[in-house]
């Protein structure tokens, strides 16, 4: 468990957050505006229902409850540097139970989008590559293609880890559950046009510098 | 800080320059007026275009009040009483229901959009309901524009 509190986080002068934090806050508030009921965030009473309902909170360095507390404290950057938002398996249990009816899962999606846009990630932590690889797959074939997805993901992140998957791959192969060639949709052109148009509505993409991604390798640090 | 007719007047702070919608609302004393007070106590904001006239029961709402209100310059009229079955006077609100029904047809005959008259039920605990009603009505009247009565 890493320590949370950077004593220097939060306002630097009375009522003034550092510029970077202000920008993140603005980006976050803009994102949650698009989530129905996003404003309910303010109603959080810090009861920890989200953390306790979360099947993976034990593996997080910041609990879901603390995500909201850190937003309030003006420590979004620190938050984005934690593993928390990437461990979320979007199981929606927190959203279902939250006594303040906060859309926590959707807030975490919003944070993931900001992290990708701003290029702020935990150290040695390439998980977001998974999402990106996935979307590239869709652009390329119109469908997801499990083998390709995993191959690409591991090649971009942790090639040696692939070795560990050989047993699994073999078992699935034997039982007829692996498809070697990607399945493509017929009207790929149409899908690409739709994606291209839709992209213009999402927040301006400051693409993550390639170097930042490829340099980040390894994720052994996860544990209880 | 006192002022009598003898002291000279200051220039009024507020001067009307453009059209502001004027909506009068007849609210029964027991449910709706209390409900509107609750909106106030809860600081739920609603549109200042709406002004409230208190009557004891929505059943007191004489149809001529509505017609005269339009003639006096109101752009819209709201009538609000207790929910059916909850009337402080047992059944005044049912009478209102029937009257407003007829009134809508009547004002339509005068060339007034029936949307300018609205009947709602607001209980003493429904401050948010009252605020929503006032806001919806104000939005509606704004979209309809000023009422121009045919003489």
């Amino acid at each position, binding site marked *: 468990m890493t320590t949370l509190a950077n004593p220097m986080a939060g306002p630097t002068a009375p009522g003034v957050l550092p510029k970077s934090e202000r920008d993140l806050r603005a980006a976050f508030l803009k994102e949650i505006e698009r989530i129905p009921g996003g404003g309910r965030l303010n109603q959080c009473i810090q009861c920890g229902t989200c953390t306790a309902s979360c099947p993976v909170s034990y593996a997080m360095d910041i609990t879901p409850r603390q995500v909201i507390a850190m937003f309030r404290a003006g420590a979004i950057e620190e938050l984005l540097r934690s593993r928390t938002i990437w461990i979320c398996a979007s199981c929606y249990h927190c959203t279902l139970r939250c006594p303040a009816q906060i859309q926590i899962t959707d807030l975490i999606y919003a944070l993931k989008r900001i992290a990708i846009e701003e290029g702020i990630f935990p150290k040695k932590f390439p998980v977001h590559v998974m999402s990106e690889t996935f979307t590239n797959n869709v652009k390329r074939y119109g469908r997801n293609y499990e083998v390709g997805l995993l191959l690409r993901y591991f090649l971009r992140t942790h090639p040696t880890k692939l070795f560990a998957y050989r047993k699994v791959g073999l078992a699935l192969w034997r039982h007829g559950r692996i498809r070697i060639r990607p399945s493509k949709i017929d009207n790929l052109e149409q899908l690409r046009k739709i994606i291209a148009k839709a992209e213009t509505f999402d927040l301006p993409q400051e693409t993550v510098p390639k170097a930042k991604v490829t340099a980040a390798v390894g994720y052994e640090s996860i544990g209880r | 800080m006192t002022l009598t007719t003898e002291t000279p007047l200051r220039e009024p*702070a507020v001067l009307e320059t453009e059209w*502001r919608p004027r909506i009068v609302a007849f609210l029964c004393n027991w449910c709706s007026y209390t409900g509107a007070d609750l909106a106030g106590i809860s600081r739920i904001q*609603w549109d200042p275009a709406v002004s409230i006239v208190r*009557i004891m029961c929505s*059943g007191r709402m004489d149809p*001529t009040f509505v017609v005269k209100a339009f003639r006096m310059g109101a752009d819209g009229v709201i009538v609000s009483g207790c929910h059916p079955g909850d009337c402080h006077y047992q059944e005044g609100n049912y009478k209102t229901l029937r009257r407003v029904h007829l009134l809508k047809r009547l004002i339509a005959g005068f060339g007034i959009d029936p949307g300018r008259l609205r009947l709602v039920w607001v209980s003493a605990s429904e401050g948010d309901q009252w605020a929503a009603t006032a806001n919806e009505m104000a939005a509606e009247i704004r979209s309809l524009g000023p009422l121009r009565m045919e003489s």
Partner: protein
Amino acid sequence: MGTNEEPRIGVYVCHCGFNISATVDVEAVRDIAATRPNVVAARDYQFMCSNAGQDLIKKDIEENGVNRVVVAACSPLMHEPTFRTAAEEADLNPYLVQIANIREQCAWVHSDRAAATTKAASLVNGAVSRVALHEPLDPTHADMNPATLVVGAGIAGIQAALTISEAGNDVYLVERKSTIGGMMAKFDKTFPTLDCAACILTPKMVSADRRENLHLMTMAEVESVEGFVGNFKVKVRNKARFVTDACTSCGECLNVCPVNVPDPFNEYVSTRHAIHKAFPQAIPSTFVIEKQGSPPCMEACPIHQNAAGYVALIADGRFAEAAKLIRRRNPLPFVCGRVCYHPCESACSRGKVDDPVAIRGLKRLAMDWEREHEPDPQPDPPEHDHAEKVAVIGSGPAGLTCAFDLAQEGYKVTVFEKHDKLGGMLAVGLPDYRCPPEIVERDLDYIRKTGVEMKTGVELGVDFRLADLLGDKPGFGFSAVFMGLGAHRGLQLRVPGEDAEGVVLGIDYLREINLGRAQPTGKRVAVIGGGNTALDVARTARRQGAEVAILYRRTADEMPADIEEVEGAIAEGVMFDYLVSPLEVVVADGEVTGLRCVDNELGKPDESGRARPVAIEGSEHVRQFDMIIPSVSQRPFRTWYKSSVPEKGEIGFTKWDTLVVEPESLQTGVPGIFGGGDVVLGPASIVEAMGQGRRAAEAIDKYLQGQPLENFTTHVAPPDPVRGFVKRPYEHGPTYDQIEKMPRARLEARDPAARLADYDTVDIGLTEEQGIREASRCLHCGVCVECESCQNVCPPDAVRLDMKDEIVELEVGQILVSTGFKSFDPTRMTPYGYGRYDNVVTSVEFERMMNSTGPTGGQILCKNGKPPRSVAIVHCVGSRDENYNRYCSRVCCMAALKFAHLVKDRTDAELYEFYIDMRAFGKGYEEFYLRVLDEGANVIRGKVVEVQPARGHNGDGHLVVRAEDTLIGRYREIPVDMVVLMGAIEPQPDAAQVGRTFSLSRSPDGFFLERHPKLDPVGTTTDGVYLAGCSQGPKDIPDTVAQAQAAAANILAMISKGEVIIEPVRATVQEHLCGGCKTCLNLCPYTAISFDEKGNHAVINQALCKGCGTCVAACPAAAITGAGFTDDQILAELDGILAPIGGRAI
């Protein structure tokens, strides 16, 4: 102040600190107001409601000649009385004051300063225009009735009632439960002082009981409230307690009541009897019987047999009592135990779980037990002795029941039977294997003991005539006659060849065999029909050695015969052929050789709702039989009827030959002659006929006693008997699908081959063990089973099972509503596992567990009887949660700390408190919190989200609670043995209904709304109605008692004042304008308007008028004025509001 005086208006604009002035430019409003006509003074002030503010007004009235006042401030509901009083003090009529609400309806709800100021100015304009037209009014006065109604007898109601009655006033304390004491009576200790709840509550309960002018009304509910402050008229329903005040609380009844149901007082954790007292110190100490209506089995029975009663007694092994109970309402118990078609079983709630209780089999068991153990049962001697003689014609079930009931009533009854055997259809219509003669004889024997005389071989129309009976020939001279002639005439098929030899009607066939006469039976017999008679015929013919086929025109599903009969017939080798209709009896040489038939298919439903059989074209065929027994239906004989009874009336018949009778009294066209059973109903069942016999007996009694033939009390089974309750048998018990299934006892049948050799009964009855087991399947769905055991043992004879609810009317001046709360039902929060895991309990259950009168005698124990090793207490269950209740329940933190202390005190368990925020706000509360911390409670800041059993073999049945320990930011799973859920305080489920009854508003959380949250926390918007306790919002005992005392003080103040001021807002008719159209008459909900025919105008009774103004609005001639709200005043206000706000131009 005269009305013709020129108005001189003073306008006073309040800043209300910053409340108004922050949004509204108060000075501008003042300045604009000053420009309005007739305004002679316009001022603003920080707080107009303060003394200094009021003095401004008074001074202007006294010194500046102001004679109309407008105050622009908060809502009139808040300070209108204040300013009116100020005016009055300055000698100005208080109704010349008008309030402009610029706070709640302006400053607080708008943020745009310009717009808010404009609006405030408009509102003041309106008030100024209006007040100019105000006229002085004088309020009227009415006497204050000092009697007070207190609704709900928890600690709040008791406390207030004691205080008010102490001052010498009558108080009616109405409580819907059987005891006063409310929720507090369930508690063990109270926080923070740890007083024993009972020790401080019961003395108050006892005083409430003893005080002469405090009238306790338990098991009572207010049905309606009329009138207004000072003079309310209240209707209260006193629910039947079924035990009178004579009860000495000795508890003898507890030893005999066979019913156990979950005990609501112990939160359904333990059980109690149907007759009970909630807890030992309950007040009043009179016992009470819980009934959920009548048991459905009893309702469904035409003779209202207490089936549930004897079933419960059998389950208890009390066979003798069961038999006795059966006999009280059933003159033919042996017969019914074998051949009744048991509508009780169709209605039985157990059928919703698996199969109905075998009620008929149990009745047979009880009666067989009696036959074995009680050779000579004796009926009770009749209470009365009447000289009148009654004739009963026909000894079937209807006639016997009528005779029995009348004999028990003390009449002299003679039964006339045309056959040589008594019993009617029982003797001649039912084969012996179903209804053995010795069984019928045993029932007849008992009936004879009541003094009924029975004559056989005498036939109406042959040996005597109807007129003879009522005449004074020797041996006759009856005062009334019951005709239970039955329906013994079989119907023919109406097909060709039916009169051939070898065609015998089913009913005739059975009669001949039953009477032992020579009746040949063929070798191959066709029985036509699908009712019980057809089955009886077929099975009888089998016993006569024939091969038998039943031909029925529909399918097995539509067959009306009892399923037991069909099964028996199949076992005995009767063949069934469905969807066949006979067309012609084939006759050769005068003898039957076969039957020409046609096949059917099912078509659209007919009037009876059953599918109509439709012949299939070309399917005609012949089947070979040597005997045909049509058994389709029966009708009564009419051959006895020669002429009417002279000068008395006409006996009428329907087209089906049945008697025409009055539906209620069963009297025929001739007074004193009644009819019932098959002769009225057509072929029906035994028990339906008995029901009619019973009703006729009641009618005959009324007739002979000269009473009108109405208001009958004998039971009539509803046409569609209720099948138990909707979801669960007991209001608070498990649902039908939660009840464990248990197979129904099957009566063993003798081997079919042996059965065909004789006419002995087919079924072998239940053994005692089987019977007890079967009877224990009863769900006691009516709670009290009406077995009458308690009634039989009660030393002071206090039990009255037929007690009815009654309505009492009270007149009171004021009402206090203290109806309490409901504890949150945690089954709504599935993850907590309440109801699924044994040791997850609610806070109230935990209170009972710790109480020495509770289910564990005050010990904290898990379900397995062991003390817990670790206990988790979960705060905020259903409160502070948008999904359930938004509000904080306020008392749970402290109650939870109290639990923590008691757990620490009484067990060695580790204790965990899971809280979100610890609310220890009261006197001594924080100190108590610290004390509990000191005692070693583990407090974890975090909401529990889930309780699960420990997985598999790792666990020893303990539970795991999951929460985030938010102070260390870590997810935790803590193993515990017991979880206590601190459920929210919620409004009573019927709060909406109660609110309507007393004209109370409710806040968004559902609790009753006080008049003002700070300044009037006990009043309501309805004058004379007050609130106290948790019905107004969650609160603890000290706050509840304080509020109750406050309410009592308010009530006493009003009583001391002795009169109430009635607002002069009233309607009056200006007679000269009234056109006499009477439109207003029907509009007034208080019937205050009458019509003066002489003067041709409406008149309004000022005492009844409440000033709603509906009539004012409706009067086409504008002849009715509403004081305080005249048309002119309202229109002036409108005009003022709508006038443009601007410069001096105004």
